[in-house]
């Protein structure tokens, strides 16, 4: 009997590029596996929690899927994942990794193939520290992911801060914050501003002529978004568990085949989609399908697949243990892209392992 996978992801409206990359990476892996015993159904959640929940109900009740995947946003994941895993379905997250699902609300059927939300920020906190910066100014939007981000940063950066600011979610004008940065005497800036907020911030920051170096998580400097940030991004260091130039055969093959298939460079999200699919495929292979839940779970947990990011293991709360790199934005010819310059954290898991009682 075929393994049925339901993918719920964001394919319309703002933010759809993330969902599209996850989907494309995922489907590329399925295609490359050549397996005909895996059916993938894909639906658009329009970034609305209740729509996502409805699709998951449909996938579970009507299509009787074995596995769900695809969700980009934490708040959608919080709506979908807990009820889904309780019904015995597996959920493999290709992106969102809210702390609740890593800690108290963890579940044996929930696996995250990307990262726990804090990971990239933690890496940057460590890196900024290691680079000898003494007064970073940090900012993020005023919502849980933003607070987690700065908490994550501070977990590994323990020195003095020039300032800590929470902006309005969806804010597009950062003149006031930039002036604050200027006035604060900061020697570095760390920001987590996903999507259009980050683009706006970077543009305005570079236009303001302030030259304090900027650090960020990969989200604002990833392949899909770099073109929109433009030259303002060149030289910015950002943290990521994956990069196009990770020198492994698996990654080279992935980048090449993705580019060939879709005519664009893969992004972080594409790599996560790709890895999620390969994780599932490896477990299906090992457990001979997904019907035997215990066997399948064990196979997932073993994570016997070649991740494009290099070494990959699951921590006890089913979140990755992985290296997190620091990349720098560079210009290759006309194209903006990233180059690895350092390893931020090696074999890093997450801060919530202990809270998870499975």
């Amino acid at each position, binding site marked *: 009997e075929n393994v049925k996978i339901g993918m719920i992801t964001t394919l319309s409206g703002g933010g759809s590029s993330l969902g599209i990359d996850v989907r494309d990476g995922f489907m590329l892996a399925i295609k490359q596996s050549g397996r005909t015993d895996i059916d993938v159904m894909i639906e*658009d959640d329009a970034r*609305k*929690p209740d729509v996502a929940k409805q699709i998951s109900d449909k996938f579970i009740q009507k299509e009787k899927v074995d596995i769900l995947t695809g969700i980009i946003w934490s708040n959608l994941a*919080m709506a979908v994942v*807990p009820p889904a895993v309780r019904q015995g379905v597996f959920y493999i997250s290709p992106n969102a990794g809210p702390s609740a699902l890593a800690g108290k609300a963890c579940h044996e059927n929930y696996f995250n193939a990307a990262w726990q939300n804090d990971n990239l920020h933690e890496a940057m906190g460590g890196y900024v520290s290691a680079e000898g910066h003494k007064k970073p100014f940090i900012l993020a939007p005023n919502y849980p992911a933003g607070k987690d981000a700065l908490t994550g940063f501070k977990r590994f950066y323990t020195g003095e801060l020039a300032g800590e600011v929470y902006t309005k979610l969806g804010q597009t004008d950062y003149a006031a914050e930039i002036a604050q940065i200027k006035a604060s005497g900061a020697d570095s800036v760390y920001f987590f501003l996903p999507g259009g907020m980050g683009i706006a911030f970077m543009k305005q920051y570079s236009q303001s002529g302030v030259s304090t170096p900027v650090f960020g998580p990969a989200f604002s400097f990833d392949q899909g978004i770099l073109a929109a940030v433009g030259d303002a991004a060149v030289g910015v260091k950002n943290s990521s568990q994956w990069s196009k130039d990770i020198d492994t055969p698996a990654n080279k093959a992935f980048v090449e085949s993705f580019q060939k298939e879709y005519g664009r460079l893969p992004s972080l999200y594409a790599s996560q989609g790709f890895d999620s699919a390969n994780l599932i495929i490896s477990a299906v292979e090992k457990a001979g399908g997904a019907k035997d839940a215990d066997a399948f779970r064990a196979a997932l947990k073993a994570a016997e697949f070649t991740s494009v990011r290099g070494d990959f293991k699951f921590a006890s709360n089913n979140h990755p243990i992985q290296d997190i790199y620091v990349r720098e934005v560079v210009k290759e010819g006309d194209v903006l892209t990233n180059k690895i310059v350092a390893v931020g954290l090696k074999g890093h898991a997450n801060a919530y392992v202990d809270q998870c009682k499975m």
Partner: protein
Amino acid sequence: MTDTLNRETIVNISLAFLLLAAPMLALALDEPFYISLATKVAILSLAGVGLNLALGYGGMISFGHAAFFGVGGYVAGISAHHMFEGSDFLGLFAATDQLLLIWPMAIILCGGLAILIGLFSLRTTGVYFIMITLAFAQMIYYLGISIPTYGGEDGLPIYVRNQLPVVSSDDPLTFFLVCYALLMGGIFLSSRIIGSRFGAALQTARMNEVRLATVGIAPFPVKLTGFVLSAMITGLAGALFAELNGFVGPSMLSWHRSGEIMIFVILGGVGRLYGPLAGAALFILLEFFIGGFTDRWQFFLGLILLGVVLFAKGGLMGLIAGRARHD
């Protein structure tokens, strides 16, 4: 004249029947998923029925009903959260998982909130009213995303299933029937209210406040009462919605949600008893079916909605049941 009246009644009965029959049919065809879709239609229709009372009959175009919808939802969510954690709300109230307690709580809280918002908002009219209700809803929305205790933007999953006496709220069909009954109750209540003396006053407040005052009825209390009743119904719908999704989050409080409830009402036909049901059903079914059909579904949804506005005066009910009668 009487035949348009009859036509509307026939349409109403058919709508009510169709909604009831859909899950039965789904069950017969062994497609239980459609039960939850029908439940969603029923709940969002109820939210629309609430809004319709203010907007359609009272002329109070509230662009902030998500505040009530969300607060209703959060009552259910927070209660379940404390139940799950075994804690008290602010150390004051013991948590409960009894829906028969949660619902009245949601209704009363939304009523109280509506009194507060109404007291300020009803000083304004027209577009100003639209915007001030939006303002209040936005305040609550931002409160919702920034309170970490209840999940902030991530929302609050409901891990425990709240309970009803006698029947099992866990069973989808039972839960649908409960929602359906509440929807029908809401519609019936609306119809009584609209036909009552209060309803006459409320509707005159929409058409001409000066007239209302001139015959000796102070418009403000009439409007406030209408607004509060409306908020209470929408708040109940919010509590049901949280129960259905097993989740509450600030998206229930967002202006998109207010807009969506308003779209249901307009699409179905403003000031028509069954308008919200017709509108919500069409919208949700379109969303569901074209959504499964193409990624570009929003484009086609837009075209269809546009077609309805352009070619159906008075929304769907206007199209299928003819002009509304007001005499």
